[in-house]
């Protein structure tokens, strides 16, 4: 009995020494991992707004990081999903560092086609999650939420009542004041504001445009001018307002006059 008992004792001792050595080195090794975030790069095209976030994983530990999966999800206040992006890295070996670029992209049109986002400030929620397999034996993950403020590019858009002045004996100049505040921290509103004036018989009286270049967090006040045939002007009618920019198109906004 003594020999197997002694063998079992030694086996138990070795087992615990190895298990504790693995546990201690895993814990210590995990403290040697450094994660840094680089400066995010923003890029937008006509269709897409993309934020590239450089993430530097400095694995100074003794074990590899495998199956690294970073996922971001953007939803609005009604939980409508705007974007889901994932970045996957198969392995970061020990004593290595790696810079990965996680792209968060969303379709601008999806946002700006919703009038509520053009005219009202709001908040989006960014859900971020990271899952990885540390040392191939410890799956680890974390999830976090953050709020992204959305500033309306046409906040408080106002088109005033048209004012008429004489252009010549047969035509009138119509002045239509417009104003808004570009609350967007992300982009300028650069484009044209176009108006189409109709009389009560739905005849087009005139079209006028004005160019606007409104940087982020600035106000715009201007007026659109157009020349109309005085004989066709009626007491009542409609003015259609269109906003056409690099980032989005909106319209028509219908204003009844008279």
């Amino acid at each position, binding site marked *: 009995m003594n020999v197997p008992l002694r063998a079992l004792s030694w086996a138990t001792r070795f087992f615990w020494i190895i298990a504790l050595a693995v546990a201690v080195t895993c814990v210590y090794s995990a403290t040697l991992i450094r994660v840094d975030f680089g400066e995010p790069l923003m890029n937008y095209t006509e269709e897409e707004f993309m934020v590239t976030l450089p993430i530097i994983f400095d694995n100074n530990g003794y074990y590899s990081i495998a199956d690294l999966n970073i996922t971001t999800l953007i939803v609005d206040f009604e939980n409508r999903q705007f974007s889901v992006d994932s970045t996957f890295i198969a392995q970061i070996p020990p004593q290595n560092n790696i810079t990965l670029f996680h792209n968060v992209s969303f379709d601008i049109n999806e946002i700006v086609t919703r009038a509520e986002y053009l005219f009202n400030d709001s908040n989006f929620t960014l859900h971020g999650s990271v899952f990885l397999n540390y040392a191939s034996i410890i799956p680890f*993950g974390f999830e*976090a*939420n953050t709020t992204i403020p959305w500033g309306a590019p046409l906040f408080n858009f106002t088109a005033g009542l048209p004012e008429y002045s004489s252009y010549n004996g047969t035509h009138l100049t119509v002045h239509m004041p417009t104003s808004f505040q570009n609350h967007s921290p992300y982009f300028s509103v650069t484009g044209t504001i176009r108006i189409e004036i109709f009389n009560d018989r739905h005849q087009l009286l005139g079209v006028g445009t004005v160019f606007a270049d409104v940087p982020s967090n600035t106000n715009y006040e201007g007026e659109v001018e157009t020349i109309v045939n005085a004989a066709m002007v009626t007491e009542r009618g409609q003015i259609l307002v269109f906003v056409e920019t690099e980032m989005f198109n909106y319209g028509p906004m219908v204003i009844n006059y008279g």
Partner: protein
Amino acid sequence: MGETMKDRENQFTTRAMIPRFFKAIFKTAIVYILFIMFSGFTIPFEGFYDYKLLFTVFVVLYMVFVFVTELVRGTIFQHIVSIVQSLMIVIYFAYILNTGIINFTVEQINLMVDLRFFLAIFVLGSLLGFAKSMLSLLNWMNEKEEQWLQHQIKSL
């Protein structure tokens, strides 16, 4: 059983207990020093999941077992304490590792660590210890029985 009353009395006399007591204190002190050294590695995890409390409870229990085991060394109680210790370790790890998957929240960040591998290793190690303690107990009883038989044979 094979153990005579005189043997039992001899095991728990003041003379026999004093060296055991000091040895037990010495071994417990070594465990405590190891705990102090090891706790340096756990600083980054303090604040998570009542970690410090659970770790301290474990170390205190372990020290108690080391102390008691040394105090009752050479008796049947040594093996019984060893069996209880093995079972305690299994129950402790199963409890603190929450069946292996730990979820906790730190400043609005939800963290998940899957420690099922370690749970399996610790349980396996404890069961090995449990098996060893059971075998030691059987061996101890067997030896005592043999001693008694030899004593009976000689007396014939």
